[in-house]
């Protein structure tokens, strides 16, 4: 596994255009500049320079080639926005004194709250402590909010004069493209747009390498086919390649990763987390992902699905199909009587099982086609979703006769955002 990357020292790193000249002597006067005139924070890999104002810089306390605080990584997905924020803990007194009000208030706001507005949430349990990034020590915070609140987020950035900080906002995910114009016009911010798959892989490899506060980031389920003996155990992803990376967000992307730089998107499916949640909303009237999962945990999908044993009375031996296997998802719902006898919980459970089995099935076929036997599942569909994780582990193990292993990562949906943050640091 590659060591934690310090910034700008990777010889293999593509030299990216930088805006920083030798601005070490940029003085405090600019620090308090609140107007956002000519704010082109584009220090990132995206050589998008607006205007020519590169002369005045805030001073970095250690005067090294590292980007200005605050350090954010943003991943704007179809349903959720994932934000990682690096909180420096090694701020010296001098630095604290020089820190602009704005920056300080952002830091305090983000680190002293666990919820933002009505929909923003900080996943405190995922916080990575005492991390060293670009020579700075600090904590990495993981925050998420729904994509439909993106305009409000940009609005807030505008009100807090975020652009005056002259920082670079590295963003990935489709929203980096979709909201680029809004960032520019509403927030006077120039986004540094990054490819989501690049970021995803970068994020996964990095977080796995630094570990989860002394614990393993990667884990698997032992004895997935045995409900009694099944348990979650750490997995050492020291030699990760090749691996199949299955990212389950609103939709699903499947990548075959052969090395840090060599990967390809094998395929994708539109039956993802958005499908589970969307169908649950229609079928049960629920309004949050948590609610949908809670319902699913109490339901019985075998009332909704038609199993092999419902058709053959037991196993279908001719094809080696076990009686418990689902023959037709929602197949029982062809009958009016059965439609009237199922609960919302049963429907939620069946939806979850259907989507999960299908992802498992496609992932398994890709793994076979690509000749890869380790499959890493990530994405926010798996958040608080033990049912799906155990089912994926079980399905992969069962249908591959033990040849394939399903692996999971603690920071499920945040790798794209982490990757974006790393790009910011690398670009400096």
């Amino acid at each position, binding site marked *: 596994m590659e060591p934690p990357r310090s910034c700008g020292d990777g010889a293999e790193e593509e030299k990216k255009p930088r805006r920083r000249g030798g601005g070490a002597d940029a003085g405090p006067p600019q620090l308090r500049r609140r107007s956002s005139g000519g704010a082109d924070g584009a220090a990132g890999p995206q050589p998008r320079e607006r205007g020519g104002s590169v002369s005045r810089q805030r001073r970095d306390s250690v005067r090294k080639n590292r980007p200005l605080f605050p350090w954010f990584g943003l991943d704007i997905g179809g349903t959720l926005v994932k934000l990682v924020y690096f909180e420096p803990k090694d701020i010296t007194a001098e630095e604290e004194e020089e820190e602009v009000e704005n920056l300080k208030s952002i830091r305090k706001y983000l680190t002293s709250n666990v919820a933002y507005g009505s929909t923003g949430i900080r996943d405190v349990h995922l916080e990575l402590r005492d991390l060293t990034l670009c020579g700075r020590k600090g904590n990495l915070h993981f925050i998420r909010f729904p994509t439909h609140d993106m305009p409000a987020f940009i609005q807030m950035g505008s009100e807090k004069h975020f652009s005056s900080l002259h920082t670079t906002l590295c963003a990935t995910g489709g*929203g980096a493209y979709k909201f680029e114009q809004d960032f520019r016009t509403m927030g006077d911010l120039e986004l540094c747009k990054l490819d989501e798959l690049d970021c995803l892989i970068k994020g996964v490899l990095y977080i796995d390498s630094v570990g989860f506060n002394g614990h393993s980031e990667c884990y698997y389920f032992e004895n997935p086919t045995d409900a009694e003996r099944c348990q979650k155990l750490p997995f050492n992803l020291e030699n990760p390649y090749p691996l199949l990376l299955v990212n389950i967000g609103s939709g699903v992307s499947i990548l075959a990763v052969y090395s840090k730089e060599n990967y390809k998107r094998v395929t994708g499916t539109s039956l993802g987390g958005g499908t589970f*949640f969307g169908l649950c909303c229609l079928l049960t009237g629920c309004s949050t992902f948590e609610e949908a999962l809670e319902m699913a945990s109490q339901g019985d999908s075998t009332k909704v699905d038609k199993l092999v044993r419902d058709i053959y009375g037991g196993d279908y031996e001719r094809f080696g199909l076990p009686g418990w296997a689902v023959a037709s998802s929602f197949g029982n719902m062809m009958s009016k009587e059965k439609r009237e006898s199922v609960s919302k919980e049963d429907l939620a459970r069946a939806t979850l099982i259907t989507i999960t089995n299908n992802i498992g099935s496609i992932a398994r076929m890709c793994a076979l086609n690509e000749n890869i036997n380790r499959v890493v599942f990530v994405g926010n569909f798996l958040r608080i979703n033990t049912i799906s994780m155990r089912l994926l582990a079980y399905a992969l193990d069962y249908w591959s006769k033990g040849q394939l292993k399903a692996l999971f990562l603690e920071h499920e949906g945040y790798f794209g955002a982490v990757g974006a943050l790393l790009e910011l640091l690398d670009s400096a």
Partner: protein
Amino acid sequence: MAERGGRGSGGGHGSLDKSITLPPDEIFRNLENAKRFAIDIGGSLTKLAYYSTVQHKVARVRSFDHSGKDIENEPLYEISVQEEITARLHFIKFENTYIETCLDFIKDHLVNTETKVIKATGGGAYKFKDLIEKKLGLKVDKEDVMTCLIKGCNFVLRNIPHEVFAYQKDSDTEFRFQTNHPNIFPYLLVNIGSGVSIVKVETEDKFEWIGGSSIGGGTFWGLGALLTKTKKFDELLQLASKGQHTNVDMLVKDVYGGAYQTLGLSGNLIASSFGKSTTADKEFSKEDMAKSLLHMISNDIGQLACLYAKLHNLDKIYFGGFFIRGHPVTMRTITYSINFFSKGEVQALFLRHEGYLGAIGAFLKGAEQDNPNQYSWGENYAGSSGLMSTSPDVYPMQRTRSGTFDMLEMDRLERPLVNLPLLKDPSTYIPDTVDLTDDAMARKYWLTCFEEALDGVAKRAAASQPDSVDAQERAEKFRQKYWNKLQTLRQQPFAYGTLTVRSLLDTREHCLNEFNFPDPYSKVKQKENGIALKRFQSVIESLDSLGWEERQFALVKGLLAGNVFDWGAKAVSDVLESEPQFGFEEAKSKLQERPWLEDSYSQWLQRLKDVTAPSSPSCPFLAEGNPVQPAPGWL
């Protein structure tokens, strides 16, 4: 995953419809000679199969021994009409609601008492087991669904021309029929019933279930019923065909604002099915949800099928099951999905007789001692219903489903069909010059031509059997039957595969045979052959007197002129009506000057020069005793 569910509302046991009366001449024909019954009962359709023998007249030619006799005033050969018995396979498809009526009908008409068992397959076989045993007094012998399906599939792939087609919604010809390939293996069969079964078929008896998916027709139906409160499968499909999935699905452009250019993913691709319905307070239309569901399921099946095809290195995928069965809507979405996920490398293929595969297979299991696989079987166009579209939106002219009996009849051919060994590539050889499915103008022309000639053919048929008391009556029945076939083909030119002049002639011949007219033209042919043979010597002599090149040209013109009579084009029939003395020389003189419409004469001549010594003897032309053969490839 292997269940073959039914379509439509599904006739329960409790709702059997006994109100219909079955016309004995049209449905369940030849029951008096029937044996070896098989039945395939799906969720709403029953398919019944049996074997019968058909007695019909055939014209046999016997030449006289004229050695040493004066042949001037004697016919050169005699035609005797003989009764011959041939084997026929009958397959009938009807709704489960009529099963009791049908079983009663069969019981009443069944004469053969050797039959002791009936082979049964399909998900509904167990449900009707007692009823069948009680009504028919036959023991129900159950056969594995998938084994029957594969057996049936192999059988139709081997025996029925243009069984296979690709579906192209946005082209002029929606149905693109394929020429039968001599080697049908290996292939992938994706059966979309309530679930999906993916089976790899390697040889006649070797097949393997390689995978499946629980997201299939039952998911569309069950989930669709929950979402839209629409109960019937067909109605759900209709809803879907009217909906806009973009209102429900999250597209790439909803996430990206446009295309995802790095990956070349178009903005219109679905990023997340139902991704826009993640809200409790918005209402979505039934049509939109049904459409989104249809896309979700079709795309998923197509993707898995491609993944399996890739893993097993297969490029032929046949789709079947009630989800597909003749529905243009699902054939379209599946085709789209296969094209997308295989990047055009794999083609989605469909079968004209997909609905019969299980019944055919079960029948074959029961008829193994007759070795049906040793023979070649031909689709009898007179006794078969042909492919109908079941989407009322697309084809308003089609029959209503209820009370419909769909039929397939196949005749055992006298001898097995093999590919002409001289063909360079039998799978690409197309004997017909005009594809009338494709060419609407030509289709109209030829259908009209056959319609206008029909009265004359019927008259001649009656006249060919002057001693028969019911010849007139039979000729009229023939006329009516063939007329109806022509009207069907006007509406659904794809009903029996690619429509060609040859298939129109075959259909006419099958209809004639149906009413016991083996060859209405036999007398005419006899007369003309008599005349031709008398001139034979002089024609040969005149050909031999020509130089080599001239002779080749004269031969070709002779072939063309001879064929002009047989093809019966309207212009020729007009000429024959107005000029009774019109003969071979007149026909030759009426041939167009070169270049002909399709003219490769010069290449042919060159090839002859290259490969043969210029001394080949000329050959005579005789009116053919058999149905019209395909035109030579160079014509």
